[in-house]
């Protein structure tokens, strides 16, 4: 038996690019991270940071062409997923690794009943009779808080929050070891988001599932994750435990993100936005990709790519001036 603190997933130097007629887009640029068994990693970043591409890379769902995994390894239980054949990946997807997509309105098939959609994944991966699969599907519906009698209803008969519960039921139907949730609550209202987050947290504890939670919402991360990786322009710029990131943030981008959010509990006159825009992913700067927007940039930042600095066993940051900036304002403070 493996111990609880075993590494379930290890991504090493993963690079994913999209080639178009005119340009080469480096969507994911040599990222590395680990997901220990039973824990949740938050993958945080803005539109275009490469979060979803990373997830699709792990799932083996990058559209080829134009996409291509340009390098790296994805070790899941010690096996490199990038070396698997399409048939082997099909057996893993939905069984050992599953994914929840952002938009529950489009993730479900509108002309199949929700029950049949849960059944489909069960029958695909487990040797159960139709009858047993139906019973299991009803059980899954109950697990996510939907009465089993609604098995025969169609997605349009459910509200957004309920549809997302169905999607969660499908993802968990075969008790996956790793669940990748891509913005699972972004399309939902806050009171419904609260219900779904509670459900996901409870299920994670009950079933011992490891999770990668992709989101742009630092509030959701604070409630669900043990570890956090901040992504910017295809790179992980800072990674650490929840405490490392929320209370001892070092990277100017991480701090900028926290400063951009209006505080609910304190009155502020003006917000402190991050100046400028995300760089064009087909023409990334030579040096640090955040340098053009960074208030602390120096000549060294723009001259050459910035490596990752290990600040503590759990906390690493990709910033030339990480050492100097330590004394500055702490990102997560109220």
């Amino acid at each position, binding site marked *: 038996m493996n111990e609880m603190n075993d590494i379930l997933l290890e991504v090493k130097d993963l690079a994913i690019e999209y080639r178009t007629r005119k340009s080469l887009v480096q969507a994911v640029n040599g990222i590395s991270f680990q997901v220990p068994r039973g824990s949740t990693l938050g993958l945080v970043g803005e539109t275009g940071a490469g979060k979803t591409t990373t997830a699709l890379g792990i799932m083996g769902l990058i559209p080829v062409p134009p996409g291509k995994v340009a390098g790296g390894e994805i070790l899941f239980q010690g096996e490199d997923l990038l070396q698997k054949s399409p048939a082997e990946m099909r057996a893993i997807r939905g069984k050992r690794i599953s994914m929840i997509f952002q938009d529950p309105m489009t993730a479900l098939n509108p002309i199949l009943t929700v029950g049949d959609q849960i059944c489909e994944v069960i029958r695909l991966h487990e040797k159960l009779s139709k009858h047993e699969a139906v019973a299991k599907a009803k059980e899954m519906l109950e697990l996510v808080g939907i009465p089993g009698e609604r098995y025969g209803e169609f997605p349009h008969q459910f509200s957004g929050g309920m549809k997302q519960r169905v999607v969660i039921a499908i993802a968990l139907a075969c008790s996956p070891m790793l669940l990748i949730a891509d913005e699972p609550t972004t399309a939902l209202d806050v009171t*419904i988001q609260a219900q779904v987050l509670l459900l996901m947290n409870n299920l994670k504890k009950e079933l011992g599932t490891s999770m990668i939670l992709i989101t742009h919402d630092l509030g959701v991360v604070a409630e669900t994750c043990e570890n956090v990786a901040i992504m910017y322009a295809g790179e992980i710029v800072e990674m650490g435990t929840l405490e490392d990131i929320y209370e001892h943030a070092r990277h100017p981008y991480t701090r900028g993100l926290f400063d951009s959010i*209006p505080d*609910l509990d304190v009155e502020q006159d003006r917000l402190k936005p991050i100046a400028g825009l995300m760089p064009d992913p087909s023409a990334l700067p030579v040096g640090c990709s955040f340098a053009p927007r960074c208030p602390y940039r120096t000549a060294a930042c723009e001259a050459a790519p910035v490596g990752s600095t290990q600040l503590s066993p759990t906390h690493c940051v990709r910033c030339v001036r990480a050492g100097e900036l330590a004394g500055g304002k702490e990102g997560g403070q109220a």
Partner: protein
Amino acid sequence: MGTILEVKNLKKYFPTPRGMLHAVDDVSFSLEEGKTLGVVGESGCGKSTLGRVILHLLERTEGTILYNGADISSPSKQELKQLRRQMQIIFQDPYSSINPRMRVADIIGEPMKIYKTCSSREEYDRRVAELMDTVGLAQRVADVYPHELDGGRRQRIGIARALSLDPRFIVCDEPVSALDVSIQAQILNLMQDLQEERGLTYIFITHNLSVVRHISDDICVMYLGKLVEKCSAKELFQSNLHPYTKALLSAIPRPKIGGTPDRIILKGELTSPINPKPGCRFAPRCLYAKPECFQREPELAEVRPEHFVACHRVKEVNGL
């Protein structure tokens, strides 16, 4: 400064095959010039419909709308055209609210062409350039098409277009919801600057409570077409009184470790706004509901000075 807008018993019902959908039901408020009124609520609570009815983008079913003291509830075509110069709207989705086949400068200048506010081509060009400066758009994007720009810049186009006729009052319908947080902060700051410089009055419609707190002077909380609570932004966050407001505020994940207060998890979901049952609309999900809540609809009452709440049990719930 005086009251710029007053809305009395405003109703908007939509006929549907299954009955009347009460999108906005008996909403009243007034708004001082130069201030921002935030309207918050979840999807389907009628907040966008409210904004559109005030601007006559949708016709009201009942009620009165007063603008600068004058009744504009049923304006003639001529009156409406003049009103539109003063009352503008910024839409949520910068991707679908601007014409993809027009160039940036033409989109911004179109209202000025319609209203013939410029006497010469030079004046028109100068005004467009000024507007682009005001909202922080570089002149080099004047001749590009919107699809070449990111969401933040497109939203700046929407703001420039809304400002082009020098309005006094703008309905902002989720203007930052489609934007990333770092861009969202840029746009919010821009809107605040514009308000200070030009004395604009905003109705700011959003589901994002931290944004609404930041930008608003007063806040209305809506639930299924009804106003359930209305008070100053500060008061709403410090001593809210309605059970729905409490649940809504506690549901927001705070970006801090252990920062989220004890959460009130609401059971169930929004009930249907079609032919609503008598009684309080929130009662089926309310933790404090008593039989009377299902029988009689609560009126919006001034529970504290300038603090209005529609709840039968507001005193017991808050120990007042």
